[in-house]
Structure formats: C-alpha cells, structure tokens
C-alpha cells in the first residue's frame, strides 16, 4: 500500500527531529540556548556508526551515539556555564567543531555499508491492519522518541524536579536564593540535550540512511531548534511539529520521484523555506511567545560568592 509506505518513511524522517528537539527543549527550559544541536547530531551519527561497525551491534551503536553527543555537549557546558562564555557564539563553535571533527573521524568509514537496525514488532498489536505495521512494527528509535516526549511532559509539569528545572530557566537568581544549584541543574539539562541530539544522530546513521557521509545532519539540527520555538517550549508540540516537518521532507522527495515539473533544487529547499514561514507565523503572536519563552533563556548566571 503506497499510503502506508509513505507514512512509514514520514515516521523515519520525523523521529530524529523529535529526538533532537525534545533534548533542546529541556535545555532551553533550564535557560540554556544551545545552538550546537547540528554539531552534536553529526558527532552522535559518526560515534554511533563507528561503534556499531566495531562491535557489530546496532544497539551498542545507539549507546555510542548517545555517549558521544553527551560528552560533546559537556564542552558547551564548560564554556557557557563554568566560564560564562556567550551562548550563541559557543553554540556556533560547537557546530563548526562537530562538523570538522566528525568528518575527520569518519573519513575511513565513508561508503561502508552500515548495519541495519531491526524493527521490533509488538506481537498481536502489529497485526492490526494499517496502524499495526505503522505504530507497532517500528525500530527502537520510534518507540524511544514517543516515550521521551511523554516522559519529558510528565517530568516538566508533574514532578518536583521539573518544577526546579523550570524555575532555573525562568528566574535563576530566585532559584539560587532558594538554595537550588543553578549551574548543576543546567549542566544536567545540557547533557540531556547532548544525549538526545546524539541519539538523533545515531538514528540518521543507523536507520535513516544506514551509512556515514560527511555533514549527514544536513541542517536537521537547526530545524530541531526551530521546532522548539514552533512548539512554544511544550513537549507535545515538538511531536506534532516534528511530524509536520517530516511530512514536508518526505513530501518533497516523493514529488521528485514522481517527476513533478518543479526543479529538484526548489523541492529540496522546501523544508528550509517552510521552517522560515512557520517561524514567522508562530512568532507573530508576540504575547503567546512571551508567555512561554523561559525568561532567563540565554542569560548567563554567575553566583555571588
């Protein structure tokens, strides 16, 4: 069934966006703007690919991607949290370094066939027509992305830890006065963001195109950043937005395959142009964005001693 096949590819294209965006959402809710998602993603992709190659197991590859992203994010954390460097500039630095480093590390692996991730079908449920194969016969990353969105929503709004994290992002001075370790919590949030971006990269090199090629994130990290704005910093919004953008990406690929009379380059530009348009529509509502934006987003914190 063609519709089913298209929907399957939409899910595969959307999953890395959802993963990277949910990590960035937590990071921004803690008041830290990490523009290095693209860099952490390519590092995760190369880390996952190489560990999977060396061990022969895609699941150890996932762990490799996660750890690479997390360790790499610590560089950002050290500069912005410990040394109070400018967050925008440091995020850009993380992306530039990540693109160079991943290309260098992965050079010997270009063109090597990857290890395909098996899909995990859930017995009985996967036999349901249409939605069975779509929702219950997917690879690990799909289930993980849904679980992470649900888990994040629950953590942020239903637990004490989530309240603490949000308070750090909204008013770090008050949080500090209440005895909360602002820097410590921000480190954890940055590492969570790095781990999620690493997982998103792992999905790219293990599932989406099971191989390694230079700059294989291709702007997805930046789209994930836009998704956080799109979602107004709410977890379920990330899921909806991720699938919207996944659909646009796949839609343009299918349009190219059908030989539609629009030049391929224009169709390839579509996800980026749509990102700009969606950002405009969302940001127009100034009051709405003001309510949801973490108030201390991007502001450095230096505790008095």
């Amino acid at each position: 069934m063609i519709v089913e096949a298209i929907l399957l590819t939409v899910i595969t294209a959307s999953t890395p966006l959802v993963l990277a965006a949910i990590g960035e959402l937590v990071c921004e809710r803690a008041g830290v703007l990490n523009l290095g998602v693209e860099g952490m993603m390519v590092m995760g992709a190369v880390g996952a690919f190489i560990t999977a190659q060396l061990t022969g197991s895609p699941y150890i590859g996932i762990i490799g991607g996660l750890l690479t992203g997390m360790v790499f994010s610590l560089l950002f954390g050290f500069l912005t949290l410990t040394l109070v460097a400018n967050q925008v500039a440091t995020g850009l630095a993380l992306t530039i370094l990540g693109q160079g480093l991943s290309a260098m590390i992965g050079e010997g692996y270009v063109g090597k066939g990857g290890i395909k991730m098996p899909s995990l079908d859930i017995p009985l449920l996967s036999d349901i027509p249409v939605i069975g194969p779509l929702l219950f016969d997917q690879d690990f990353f799909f289930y993980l992305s849904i679980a992470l969105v649900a888990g994040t929503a629950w953590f942020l709004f239903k637990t004490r830890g989530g309240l603490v994290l949000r308070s750090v992002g909204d008013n770090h001075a008050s949080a500090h006065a209440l005895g909360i370790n602002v820097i410590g919590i921000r480190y954890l949030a940055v590492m969570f963001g790095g781990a999620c971006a690493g997982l998103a990269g792992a999905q790219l090199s293990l599932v989406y195109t099971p191989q390694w090629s230079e700059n294989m994130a291709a702007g997805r990290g930046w789209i994930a950043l836009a998704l956080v704005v799109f979602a107004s910093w709410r977890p379920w919004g990330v899921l909806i937005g991720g699938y919207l953008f996944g659909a646009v990406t796949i839609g343009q690929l299918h349009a190219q395959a059908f030989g539609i009379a629009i030049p391929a380059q224009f169709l390839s530009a579509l996800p980026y142009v749509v990102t700009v348009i969606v950002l405009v529509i969302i940001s127009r509502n100034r009051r709405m964005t003001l309510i949801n934006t973490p108030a201390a987003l991007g502001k450095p914190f230096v505790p008095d001693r």
Partner: protein
Amino acid sequence: MRIELEKRPDRSAVFALASPVIAFVLTVIAGAIMFALIGKDPVEALYGFFIQPLTDIWSLNELMIKAAPLIMIAVGLTVCYRSNIWNIGAEGQFTVGAIIGSIVPVYFYQWESPLLLPIMLVMGAIGGALYAGIPALLKNYFNTNEILTSLMLVYAAQLFLDWLVRGPWRNPEGFNFPQTREFVDSAVLPAMLSSGRAHYGFLLAMLAALAVWFMMRFTLKGFEVNVIGQSQRAGRFAGFSSRRMVWFCFLLSGGLAGLAGISEVSGAIGYLQPSISPGYGFTAIIVAFLGRLNPLGVIVSGLVLALTYIGGENVQFVLGVSDKVTRVFQGMLLFFVLSCDTLILYKVRLIFSGRHAEEKAS
C-alpha cells in the same frame, strides 16, 4: 578541584589584547596533540600547517585570496555582533551577492567595458544586502528569530545557485559541466601584484575594514551600535531605535558579504559553479570573534584563518593528513577564543577542595 570566577572591577586591558594570542597558542598545542594522536610527527605537521605556507610567494598570494572574503564578511559581522544582532547567514548572502553580481556578465557575455566591473560589484553588494534584508524584515515586523531565519536562507541560496548553474545559466558550449560561461576579461578583477593570482578583492577588504573601523570609532552611528549592544534599554533612553539598528546591521553585513561573493567569483574563480565557497561565511564568524569584534583586529585574524585553509591543503599534500583538519583547527580556535575571553571580565581561580574548606572554617 573547582573553577571560580570573580568579576573584575574593570575590563582587563592586558587580557583584551592577550586573550586572542593565548587562544592561538592553546589551539596550536591542542593541534600538536591531535597530530600526535593520528600518528604524525607534531613538529613536522605544525610546520607544514602554519610556517611552510608562508615561505613562498605562490602561497602568500593564495593567502591574500583566501583572506579577502573572510575579512570583508567578518567586518560586517563585527557590527552585527557588537549590537547583539545575530546574522549567521553570511554564507547565503555571499552566494546571492555572487549570483546577482553575475547577471550582467552571464547574460551579456560579449560586452566588454570598463563599466562592467563596477556594475557587477555594486549589484553584488545590493544582492547580498537585499537577501540579508529578509531576516531583518522578519525580525522587525514578525518578531522572528534572526539566527534561524538567516541560517535557513543559506540552504535556500545554495540550492538556488545549484539550479542556476545546472539549468538556465549553464554554459551551452561547456561540455555539460555545471558552470556558467567564463567571464570576459573586463569582468575579471585584475591581479594586484605581478607575482601571482592575488586580486584587488584583498584591497577592497582592507578598505572595508578601515571604513568600518572609522565609523565605529568616530561617528555617532558607531556609538549607537555600542550603546544598543551593551543595553537595549540604555539605547532606548538615548533615543536610538533598535528596529533601525536591525536594518542597518543586516544591510551592511549582507552588502559586504555580497561584495565578497562577487569579488570571489570575478577575482578567484572566473565563472559561477555549484560551490563557490569553502564555508567562508561561517569561518568569518570565527574571524570576527578572534579579531575581538574590532575591524582592525579582523584584518589580522582574517589572515590567520586564511592560513588554516592553506595549511590544511598543504599538510594534506605533504603529509597525507585529511583536509578535514582545517575545519577542526577552526573550530578549536573559536572554542579557545571564547574561553580566553572570560579572562577579560573575570579573574579565574582554581580552587582545590582542601584549601576551600580551610577558608570556610577560618
């Protein structure tokens, strides 16, 4: 062991000058470690990367060719970043400048005239400025984040160039290569020195740096940029419009990036092709920061970053090291620059847990 920061009463003048130098030294050390890790003699590799390219005339010319666009773009970015406006789409504005500047030599490919080059340069600058105007417009009227929009437009511009050179602008006599006709002689920026390929784009970049330095130092506009950058509120009280500042910064930096784009195409390449930049627009961000957001500093840092391109090509050729080394060096340099800048505003102390406990006790 922990690191503690103590705010200095004033910016440290010593570290303002020393921090880029320390950052450069740290990058070289980290680079040596990296070369050792991949099994190359660090001394030989560093010599090949940083020194050898400076020893012959040919590569000095190449250095100026690579430094020209970096300096030109970075000078515009310093104004943006000083006023806290984040244009990170210079790569796209560079591309659009190259495209718009090439309209006349592509469509009127037989027209030779001394007027041709000035027309191209002006059109290139206007093209870059207009493209940069899009994120400015969206920021001012729809409150859209300029970091994301300016970056998304980079991908759109590159795909548009790709379409042009493979489609309507493809050279009909070019054996199907994806490139335009070669520019006629009067559409090519002439060589500046008798010794090699370095073209007048480098001189243009110097002039741009000097002009922007003069503006920032001696004019009201420059003062305005600094005030708004330090505090938007203070700027508002002084009657400066932050909306007009967004326009000013984007149009200026976009115009300079566009000028760099057409200079590169007409001076160094001679026709349009799918890829016209090894990431100049992004590397220029590093140039701006390494130059301490000062147009004169940018001249120095532009030459340093140009050296990383030449050095990368050189070690690839001589030692068989991957050319990806260039990007790694550039990334590390930016990291170290940003960390060393902390020294300007803060005293950094390493606290060893034992001693800290004693202090508390006493």
